[in-house]
Each structure stands twice: as C-alpha cells, then as structure tokens.
C-alpha cells in the first residue's frame, strides 16, 4: 500500500516536472476534436451527431499518445530494472503507475470534454452522460494500454506498434461510451451501457495489473 502511494506520488511528481507533456496530451485532444469540424464541414446537425464519437476517438488517441512514455523512460534509464527487483508485489507497483497515468492523461481530458462538447452543440444531458462515460472509460484505456506498453518495451517503432495492439482491444469501451450518449439522445435508457462500462472497469482493475506485470517480466529478459 505504501508502495502504491509512493509510485503514484513519484509519477505525478515527474509529470509535474514535465508539465509540457501533460499539456501536450491535452492540447492534442483539443486539436483533434477541433480539427474535425474543419475537415468535415460546418453543418451543425451532422456535427451534433458525431460529437460523442469524435470526443471518444480523440480521448482514445490522446491517451494512446501518452502511453508510449508509461514504461519507456523507466526502461531506458534503468529504473524499471530496479522496479522489477522491488521486494514487494510488482502488480501493486504497476497499478500505481496506471493510476498516475490516468490522473495525468485521462482526468484532464474528462475535465476538458464539456467545453469541447459545447462546441458541437451537445445537450446538457448528453454532456453529462459523456462525462460519466469518460470517467468510467478512460481508466480502462490506461489499463489496457499499459499491457501494450509493457509488451512493446524497447522495440523500435514501439509507439505505433503499441497503438496497433491496443486500439482493437479498446473498441468495446469506445462503443459502450458512445452508445450511452446515443441512447440518451434517442430517449432510451443509458443504465445498461454505463453498467457494462463499470463491469469492464472492475474486470480491468482486477486483471490488468497482473497481466502487465507478467508482460514486464517477459520484456525485461
């Protein structure tokens, strides 16, 4: 438990030292979302329909972008070796890194989303559901992404390979998240979508730290 707190504090501290990286993720998110109206054209009706999808895809892409750094820097400077030699549970340590990653790259997106949603003329209700969905979904992205990040450690072109591995696995999250917003727009119940997201989150919390720890041990050999 102490280890968990230590690791989270450490990663947050590192992120604060490099505030630029955090801002870049956020900025990337904003840019992707804002580029769309430019690429697609200014018809409000169409924009409103695609809003949730665009925001979710942008969130997925920008959390992917920051995933590359999750273990890579620790790997390059030898810190990861030391972590693997920690006399405590590696899964716990990995969980700490996942949580820190989410706080740095997921949470800001969630906080930013309402502002961007307004640009697309989303209703307040839909915005609310979008936020809840993102709040449940972005941690899953961080956790599934961590597996990919661990598997691709030290490989050339790791960043892109990482996306290739992780994006297909993240698709259910995307679909449930946008599905919820769609449902509210059509006046249906959102409970099922959100509870599925919640279930996936719990599953991920239980299994991904262990899987990632195994992946790290494999990659270190």
């Amino acid at each position, binding site marked *: 438990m102490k*280890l968990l707190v230590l690791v989270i504090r*450490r990663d947050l501290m590192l992120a604060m030292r490099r505030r630029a990286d955090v801002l870049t993720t956020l900025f990337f998110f904003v840019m992707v979302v804002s580029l769309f109206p430019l690429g697609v054209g200014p018809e409000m009706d169409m924009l409103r329909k695609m809003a949730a999808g665009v925001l979710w895809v942008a969130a997925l892409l920008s959390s992917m972008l920051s995933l590359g750094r999750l273990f890579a820097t620790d790997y390059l400077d*030898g810190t990861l*070796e030391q972590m693997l*030699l*920690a006399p405590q549970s590696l899964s716990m340590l990995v969980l700490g890194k996942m949580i820190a990653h989410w706080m740095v790259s997921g949470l800001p997106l969630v906080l930013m989303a309402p502002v961007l949603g307004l640009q697309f003329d989303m209703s307040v209700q839909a915005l609310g559901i979008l936020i809840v969905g993102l709040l449940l979904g972005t941690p899953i992205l961080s956790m599934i992404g961590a597996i990919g990040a661990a598997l691709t450690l030290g490989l050339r072109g790791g960043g892109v390979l990482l996306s290739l591995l992780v994006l297909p696995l993240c698709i259910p999250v995307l679909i449930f998240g946008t599905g919820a917003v769609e449902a509210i727009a059509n006046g249906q119940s959102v409970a099922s979508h959100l509870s599925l997201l919640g279930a996936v989150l719990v599953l991920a919390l239980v299994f991904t730290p262990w899987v990632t720890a195994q992946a790290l041990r494999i990659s270190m050999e």
Partner: protein
Amino acid sequence: MLEVTKLACSRGDHRLFSGLSFRLEPGQILQVDGANGSGKTSLLRALCGFLMPDEGEISWGGISTAKMEEEFYAKILYLGHLNAIKDDLNALENLRIAAGISGCLLDEQQAVSALQRMGLRGRERLPTKVLSQGQRRRVALARLLVNQAKLWILDEPLTALDVGAVHLIETLLMEHLARQGMVIFTTHQPLQVPGLRTLSLS
C-alpha cells in the same frame, strides 16, 4: 549463502560460459573478471533473474532463487550499467524514491547525509540531468549507503568516478563486508579490497 552450480548462459547463438560454479559466504567479496564481451554482465543479470540461464542452478540458502522471487529481491541490491536515476528529479528525490522502491523509506535528513558522504554536497537539489557523468554515478551509488540488502551485485560501479570516489567505494565495500555482507562485482579498474577473490570468465 549464494551458491551457483554448473551455470551455463548463452546469448543468441553464442555460448558465453558453461559449467560455472562458485559459492559466496557472508563477509566474502568476488570480482568477476574477463575481457569485453566475456559475459560478466550476463552473469550478474542471471543472478538477478533478468536472464534465464540455459542450464544450472542459482540458490540462496539452499533454495532456488527462481522460486523465491520477491523474498530474494529483498536480499539483493543490483546496480547495473545504467544509473536508474530520473533526469528531471533532483538527487535527493531520486535517492528517496529508489530506496522506497527497494523497501526502505528514508527521511530527508538520512538522504541528505548519504548524498553528502558521496561528495554531492551542494548538488542535492539540482535536477540530475545537469550533473556531470561522475556525479550521476555517485547519485546511483548513494543507494549503497541506505540499503539493508545482504548481497550487493555491482556492474562496473567505478565507471566515470574520479580517484577520490574510487577510494570511497573501496571503503564502503570494506564496511559492508565487515557487516557480514556479500559483494559480487565487475570492473576493469584495479580495486584494493582485502580478501578479494576473482572469478575469471576466459
């Protein structure tokens, strides 16, 4: 305590060593010797479990280290070619985090005095990326001062160190041995420690 029997390692198609056996008891120090590429680093990494040996057994107090996992990690301190310090953090933060991960929490005072003993007075709060190569190595080596591990596994600890620092490391090794610690290390520079045994990887 540490016992290696008939160890064989290979990398790629290349057999590095085979039939390697030795024992290390409390208070003993062993230097692994050999030309560049003879497999010193590979041996040390195999001891840590980073590298799966082809054959042979590594055991600690009679139990195979592969089975002990975390329990064994609590007994060792590994320092590799890489310094394992974060460029963006300062020496103090680096040391405290490294110690925390290896299981002993330090307060600021302990960390400062360890760094000062390593000759980093006045540099404790600079981000390590501005430090010189030797100063960075010193930050990494400061872990030796704040660790309860019994077995030190050091891969070329003297890299980039000046003469004064080399003497300091010699002193540290002797203190550790006097505490019934064990050391296995590699280096290409001569090191004066009484009771030093060498193991040659031809």
